[in-house]
């Protein structure tokens, strides 16, 4: 078993939508886990909770366009022993219903799993009003909340299965796009451990979600073109953050580049800086939306526009190493 798929061709990887796998895994788990219930807010066809709904209509609740209500309804279901999974777009889960997630779910420490899809700018054409670039910051700061970002469909599957066994609130952030599968089929999740997917000594790239694949590709180019060896950490566990893996890497490389489809304030970059300053301060460059809202566009166009495509990451990493910081 490896962490990175040995079969992967980074230049032309196999692709799969995380949300499709999410829907399939839920639908599979529903057969044996009879306490599993699923809620959505009129986005079941987008989030793919529909795949569960079609098989288990009695255990699926479409709460309509009422995200606040949905979160508290999930809390009530959890309070009587059910295991609710809640989905909608990330902005409406983390943002529209923030107080409900905080006060009713997290403060009561209820077993509600929030699995929003369509996070970050790769949501694409719907534009800024729908692109959640703040949810990691929003969820990370709430006590009792666990925050997780799978990097591909395989990891999504493992995270969902594992989460069903772990009581308490979790926020599991998915994206809309068909996205590179980087993990092998036999990937085994090590909970609370962020995976070093590539070894390197010149800089550490901490990436999360979709950005992990972009970082891997950038790292490949750095090595091939410039002989720069980047260590790439797939930051699945944002909270609690896997301090050890980060610090070991930072001790080796002396600098960290963070990459997230999220504001460069308060999310992965924030977590990394907090950890480093607490344990081993080194220079950090944070890539993300630089205090700008998202906008409409095709995901790949947006990645370029916001400097989150593999080429931009490559260029930033190269400049960072060259700066000697």
């Amino acid at each position, binding site marked *: 078993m490896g962490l990175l798929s040995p079969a992967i061709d980074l230049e032309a990887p196999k692709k799969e939508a995380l949300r499709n796998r999410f829907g399939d895994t839920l639908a599979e788990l529903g057969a044996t886990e009879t306490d599993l*219930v699923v809620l959505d807010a009129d986005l079941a066809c987008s989030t793919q909770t529909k795949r569960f709904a079609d098989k288990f209509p*009695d*255990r699926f*609740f479409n*709460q*309509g366009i*009422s995200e*606040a*209500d*949905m*979160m*508290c*309804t*999930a*809390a*009530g*279901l*959890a*309070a*009587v*022993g*059910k295991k*609710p999974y809640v989905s909608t777009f990330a902005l409406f889960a983390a943002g529209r219903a923030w*107080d*409900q997630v905080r*006060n*009713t779910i997290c*403060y*009561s*420490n*209820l077993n509600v799993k929030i699995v929003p899809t369509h996070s970050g700018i790769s949501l694409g054409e719907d534009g800024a009003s729908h692109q959640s670039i703040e949810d990691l910051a929003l969820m990370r700061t709430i006590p009792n909340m666990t925050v997780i970002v799978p990097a591909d469909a395989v990891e999504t599957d493992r995270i969902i299965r594992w989460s069903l066994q772990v009581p308490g609130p979790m926020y599991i952030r998915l994206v809309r796009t068909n996205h590179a599968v980087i993990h092998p089929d036999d990937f085994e999740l090590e909970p609370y451990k962020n995976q070093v997917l590539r070894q390197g000594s010149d800089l550490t790239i901490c990436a999360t979600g979709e950005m992990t694949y972009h970082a891997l590709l950038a790292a490949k180019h750095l090595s091939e073109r410039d002989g720069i060896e980047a260590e790439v950490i797939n930051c699945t566990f944002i909270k609690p953050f896997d301090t050890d893996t980060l610090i070991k890497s930072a001790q080796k490389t002396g600098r960290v580049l963070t990459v997230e489809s999220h504001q460069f304030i308060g999310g992965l970059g924030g977590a990394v800086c907090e950890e480093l300053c607490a344990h081993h301060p080194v220079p950090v460059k944070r890539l993300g939306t630089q205090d700008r809202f998202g906008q409409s566009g095709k995901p790949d166009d947006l990645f370029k526009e916001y400097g989150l495509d593999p080429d931009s990451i490559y260029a930033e990493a190269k400049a960072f190493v060259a700066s000697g910081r």
Partner: protein
Amino acid sequence: MTESAPPADLIKNAKALPADTTTVDVDALSELSRKLRIDILDMIFTAQSGHPGTSLSCIDLLVCLFGELMQHDAKRPDWADRDRFVLSKGHGAPALYAILMHHGYIGWEEKPTLRQVNSNLQGHPASKYVDGVDISTGSLGQGLSAAVGMALGLRLNNSPAHVYCLIGDGESQEGQIWEAALSAPAHKLTNLTALCDRNSLQIDGNTEAIKPLGDIGAKFEAFGWNVLRIDGHDFRQIIAAGHRAKAWSQETDKPTMIVCQCTKGKGVSFMENEAGWHGKAPNAEQYEAALADLQPDVYYQRLKEAN
């Protein structure tokens, strides 16, 4: 404790209430309410912080719920089929703690700890600290949705348990109340009874002066609920409405809302209908005056017995 008939127009659905509440021991309930009112004031006075108005407003409802209407057992807080109660207007915590103490969920020794550091008696009910509190509340507008979730879950579990939820009238200005109000009938919940403490006051004054709610019952009716309207300090009506609500919900496949006409600060003359007593603790003089209103002899008698 008024036992006179409520104004006729109040009980629009009076005919829906069963006539026979003759077995209800109104004197005993009334006496219990009076004692719990004193407990409420004790707690708030000791803490020098808390919400007397709302607690006095709803204690008669809680006495009927926990004493007559709900199936529950303090010795088995994990009993899967116990009826559930959600205090959506969480600032009524002192009333909830008083009734939970009476029923044995909370030890009397905890009474003086309200709102102190590391107390179980948090300013607003917190599930991690108190048995009988299944969902933490305090941020208004969220409890009714949680109650809907409980009712959905219990129905999935084929449980006979019934869910009760008490909301404030000011609280009904929160949009989430109306999300839940649409949701409960959508799910045809028959194991959910909501109560609204219609005391016509919120913090900054009269609800009708701030953001008028008018006929709240009519609004719930328009959202698909059965609605009963009662005097929230008349024990016979409360209990009859509670029974009637369950039956009516069964008959109609709809949840039922009981709009309870209440008096904020009920039982303490100078607190009644005074917005100023929403979130203020009485000073020593006011505390004595309040006890006088609530018949201090009983109070001191109980103190003596306790020692």
